């Protein structure tokens, strides 16, 4: 399985019936394709509604997802203004937020909004999502395009939030962020522990109950 799909499939296993979840742009958005049919998960779109669904045949200029792409609202969904949208986010009403990262470190710090001097898109809603959601799941490819580790001892890029990340899911494995540091709890099929070690610069321990990712 291609790594982005593999990550998205594993992310979807984190969801439970009745959850309200915000999915960031990129790999996190793909997780919507793998939500099991026997559970109901509501997606929150920070531009102002719950019940986010894929675009239908008719494009409606008044309805997009938070990335500006055409979208739909599922039956039972609701629209609201940005103050309500961020009340939902910051007020602890989101079960989980799933986001990508430029860097995530062993203390659960996250950097995903700017590279000084190079890329300054702005934080959008990311800082509020990471602080407000009950669970913060980072879903990303394990290393950068240049092969540089993205799971590091200490973030060097400007932080999105301090010590808020709970879980890191990559195409190689799954790490839990605990008070004692990172714990590798799952490893992807046909991946060696040595490979993870080579591509991770953070300190971590391998769980005694290490499992294979079910993807």
């Amino acid at each position: 399985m291609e790594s982005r799909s593999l990550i998205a499939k594993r992310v979807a296993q984190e969801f439970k019936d009745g959850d309200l979840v915000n999915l960031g742009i990129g790999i996190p958005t793909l997780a919507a394709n793998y939500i099991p049919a026997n559970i109901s998960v509501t997606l929150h779109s920070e531009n102002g509604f719950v019940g986010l669904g894929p675009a239908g045949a008719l494009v409606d200029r008044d309805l997009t997802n938070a990335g500006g792409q055409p979208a739909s609202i599922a039956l039972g969904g609701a629209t609201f203004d940005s103050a309500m949208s961020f009340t939902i986010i910051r007020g602890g009403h989101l079960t989980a937020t799933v986001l990508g990262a430029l860097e995530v470190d062993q203390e659960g710090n996250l950097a995903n909004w700017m590279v000084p001097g190079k890329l300054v898109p702005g934080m959008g809603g990311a800082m509020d999502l990471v602080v407000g959601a009950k669970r913060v799941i980072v879903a990303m490819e394990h290393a950068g395009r240049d092969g540089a580790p993205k799971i590091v001892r200490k973030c060097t890029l400007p932080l999105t939030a301090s010590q808020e990340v709970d879980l890191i899911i990559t195409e190689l494995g799954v790490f839990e962020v605990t008070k004692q540091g990172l714990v590798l709890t799952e490893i992807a099929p046909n991946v060696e522990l040595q490979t993870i070690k080579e591509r991770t610069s953070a300190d971590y321990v391998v769980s005694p109950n290490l499992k294979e990712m079910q993807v």
Partner: protein
Amino acid sequence: MNKVINLNQAVGHINDAAVIMIGGFLSVGTPEAIIDSIIKKNVKNLTIIANDSGFPTSGIGKLVVSRQVKKLVVSHIGTNPETGRQMRENELEVELVPQGTLIERIRSGGAGLGGVLTPTGLGTMVADGKQIITVDGKDFLLEKPLRAEVALIKAARADTAGNLIFRKSARNFNPVIATAADIVIAEVQDVVPVGQIEPDEVMLPGILVDYLVKIQEEPYGK
């Protein structure tokens, strides 16, 4: 009083160096016709408070491209490369604010509050130079209120009293900025007589809306 005015009358309220709030999220729910009229009037040195700077060819981005903006207070500029370019060349000042903090700063400005206490941005560069206030053992950043001279909003439907109905995800910042400006101008597609919008359907009370500009747009669903 008659609230319905034309585009020329609307931009008569916007002068050089004005501080304006504009509704929309990546140009969805942005009053495009009023923006086009501001470009025609060619006022300069605007300070714009909004969610984002749109795209080069739509929304607030058009005002950046036409070099009428001195300062932006926004959460995101990534969809408009021209904003980034002007920022790097020091031609444009950009204050990046987390989206949830931005909307609450505006809400507090419109609600008569002295600001908001939020955990968002603690431990990041957003906290630089800001006061941290501890409430019941928990730290918060003090974020100050925002107000503007003019708010430009977009709605789907109005009655002649200015009561507004928004549509789908085009609501976003619009009803909130309408509370935080001295003059509020709404670009609407439809103006109906009072009584045709039930009080329970009103999403923004007309007492907050000073003027309506009726714009003929192509039908929904396109």
